[in-house]
């Protein structure tokens, strides 16, 4: 082998060594830069299913975590799994900060808290009313990667905390699972509740020209007890309105429906109508809302157009006999349109005048359409007083009158 060949070979070997060195450096840097050293075995985690956050008068946080108890879950074989029913334990932690409160729970259990499968996050109204506490909550959620942002966010009256973990939970055995199940069903079938993920709340609370909302949970006395002696139920009707990340007040089920209609969140909801001429129940579907926001002489002029379809589920007419007559159809449509219009107006005025919160996000729409005008006229003022609801047009058409099939009776 001559000298030049030996030199070439040594150069090639050098290149190979350099290449491997670079690969190892890349892996090494990636490993430590992305923090890939904190793996936890599944057997060492404690899965939280729901979390409740409270703040007392002394400025101390109280966190209650519902942790899934997996001690009876078996070894994965079907015969032992078949009778397995999930249980939970409730752990309470206190501290001057949220992190401290949660750490105190971690200290009580022998496993690592695993919050990314948390279903529900509930905050008491007395904590929600404290702007600083809510900001700390948002900050904690954004910074902490052990707790994800997907759980539904609800506000609860702080007097109902004790009752919360004794409520009827349907066919589930965990509060978090139960609420998650109800939310998924009600999102499709009812517009009387507002269901917001924590992330949506965080985004809205940071959005310019938009105030955040959260769901509302209230504990109501049940008519009868279940087999476990539970006599309380959860009501999900209504919503919790915020302004500048501070809880302002609860709104009713009708307000929640109006909120869902205005934001195009409504899938399907039932409207009940009763007056001297008719009694009707209709399913409101295919709702499409268009909101047009314009600047007009220093004010924010708002035009709202709502269209939708009605499917009549129940109808009783006191005077008319021919229910499919065109005139009657129009009359029913007009009556429902009037009803929806009244409901929406009521909500809009309540939000603007009583709660003083832009939960629909008119300011955000204005800013998106005309940022310069928004910055000039509305950014530095409380623009709610400058909002003018110019027109609210409702156009509902009956898609199905629900004619009776006489042959079936």
């Amino acid at each position: 082998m001559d000298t030049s060949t030996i030199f070439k070979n040594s150069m090639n070997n050098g290149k190979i060594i350099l290449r491997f060195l670079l690969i190892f450096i890349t892996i090494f840097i990636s490993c430590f830069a992305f923090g890939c050293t904190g793996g936890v075995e599944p057997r060492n985690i404690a899965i939280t299913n729901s979390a409740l956050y409270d703040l007392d008068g002394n400025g101390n946080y109280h966190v209650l975590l519902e942790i899934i108890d997996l001690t009876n879950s078996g070894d994965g074989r079907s015969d032992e799994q078949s009778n397995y029913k999930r249980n939970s334990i409730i752990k309470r932690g206190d501290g001057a900060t949220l992190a401290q409160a949660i750490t105190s729970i971690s200290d009580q259990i022998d496993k690592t808290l695993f919050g990314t499968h948390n279903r529900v996050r509930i905050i008491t109204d007395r904590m929600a009313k404290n702007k600083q506490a809510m900001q700390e909550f948002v900050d904690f959620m954004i910074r902490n990667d052990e707790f994800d942002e997907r759980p539904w966010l609800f506000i609860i009256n702080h007097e109902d905390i004790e009752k919360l973990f004794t409520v009827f939970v349907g066919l589930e055995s965990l509060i978090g699972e139960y609420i998650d199940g109800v939310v998924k069903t009600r999102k499709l079938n009812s517009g009387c509740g507002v269901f917001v993920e924590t992330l949506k709340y965080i985004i809205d609370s940071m959005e310019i020209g938009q105030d955040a909302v959260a769901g509302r949970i209230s504990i109501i006395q049940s008519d009868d007890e279940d087999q476990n002696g539970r006599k309380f139920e959860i009501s999900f009707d209504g919503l919790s309105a915020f302004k500048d990340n501070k809880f302002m007040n609860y709104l009713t089920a009708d307000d929640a429906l109006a909120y869902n209609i205005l934001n195009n969140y409504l899938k399907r909801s039932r409207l009940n109508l009763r007056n001297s001429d008719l009694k009707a129940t209709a399913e409101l579907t295919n709702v499409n809302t268009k909101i047009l926001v314009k600047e007009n002489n220093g004010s924010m002029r708002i035009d709202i157009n709502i269209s939708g379809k009605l499917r009549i589920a129940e109808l009783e007419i006191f005077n008319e006999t021919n229910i499919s007559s065109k005139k009657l159809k129009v009359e029913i449509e007009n009556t429902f349109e009037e009803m929806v219009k009244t409901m929406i107006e009521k909500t809009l005025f309540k939000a603007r005048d009583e709660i003083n919160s832009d939960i629909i996000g008119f300011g955000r729409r204005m800013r998106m359409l005309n940022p310069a005008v928004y910055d000039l006229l509305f950014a530095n003022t409380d623009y709610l007083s400058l909002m003018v609801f110019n027109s609210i047009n409702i156009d509902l058409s009956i898609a199905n009158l629900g004619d009776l099939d006489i042959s079936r009776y």
Partner: protein
Amino acid sequence: MINGASNNIALDKKIDEIRKALGDSFDVVTETVSLVHDQIITAYIDGFIDRDLMNRDIITPLKNVIFEPIIESNTNCITKKALDVYEFANEILTGQFGIYYKNEYFLFDIRKWEKRAIQTPDAENVTRGPKEGFTEDLITNTVLIRRRLKSPEFIIDQVKIGNKTKTLIGIGYIKGLADCDVVSQIKLKLQLIDVDGVTESGKIEQYLERKPLGLVSGIGLTQKPDIAVTRLLEGKVLILCDGTPHVLTIPELFIDNFKTAEDYYHRVFFGTFLRLMRVIGFLISIFLPGLAVAITTYNMEMLPVSYLETIIGAVANTPFPQVIEILFLIIMLELLKESGTRLPKTIGSAVSIVGALIIGDAAVRAGIVSAPSVMIVALTAVSSFIIPNLNEFTTIFRFVFLGLGAFLGILGIGIGVVFMVTQLASIDSFGVPILSLKSKNIWRDTIFRVPFKKQKYYEFAKQDGYINDI
């Protein structure tokens, strides 16, 4: 008498010379045969020639010649002459029958030896399609191909490799379809191989590939003549090695590993479905153990809570981390595969059953490994059998991804994917990158298989009049 004695001494000397050239083994037969006027020396390897043919068509006619025999015209076989004793010996070692007569070396091709019958290859079983497989005999293999490809454009060139073994290598290709550069490169590389012996095409494969340390060679493998013909029609080159039923196909793109002959015999949609299944199987066999460990160690939020609960319940009482469990099971699997392959079929299946029982049931019941880990490794094992040609590649990368998943989580899997794709992208097969889809019609026959009417070799076949115009 003196002349006769001196003649005998000369013949004895020649016999010694020939035996020396042939290696003087017990199976080397050198005999003096007396004719009417003269004597000849016959030389052959015992068991290599057809003795009946030798007696009937060569020795008996020569004995019946009254005058001085003329070997070429007095025998009933085609005769060839060797220049010297060394060429004479070399030809005899390849199975020819030799006669020495009056300073001339004559050779007769009356080769006949015991060989395996044509059987269905174990590794490429099909439910539909030809069952024939290649054998260890080169000529039988060329006949199997030629029977399916009756075209004058189909050429088989011959090369001898191995200073000692002198193994016959056939280079098959279709003129006009195969890339001339690839053919000439293969020939050149084969001629440059300087080795004592070649007993299997695997050795040639390693001499031909550009990156001996790569996990994929860019050279395909088949044991079935119908697949070999399909590859030829795709413009590829075959390398047939005497003594092995494994035929090499060059160049082999990575995507070709996912194709089987059966794909072409099924309907289009089912053929495509089978290929998709193979791709899924390939991905599972490489990634599943690593991904499972990465997810259950670093990214448990990706799993549904009910599944996570099942896993927690299953691993709660096992002593080792999941990565150790899976590593243990994969090593067990490889041991079982290896022992099952080496042992006789009857004992091999018994080993598999015992192994399956130990891993699948006893290990779980003893609480050494968890049921989900067994399920993961079982699924991986089943998937890995789908593409036997990529077995080496998937086995090695399975361990790599398991390690990366255990130490770096999903990020590690990502790094591994980059490394794997880079490795694959850097490999070419005689100038064709194995990840390329170079041919203009290749999209039509990759993961998705279009009807034959749209494919390239249909056009070739149509030109040659093998099928009627439709």
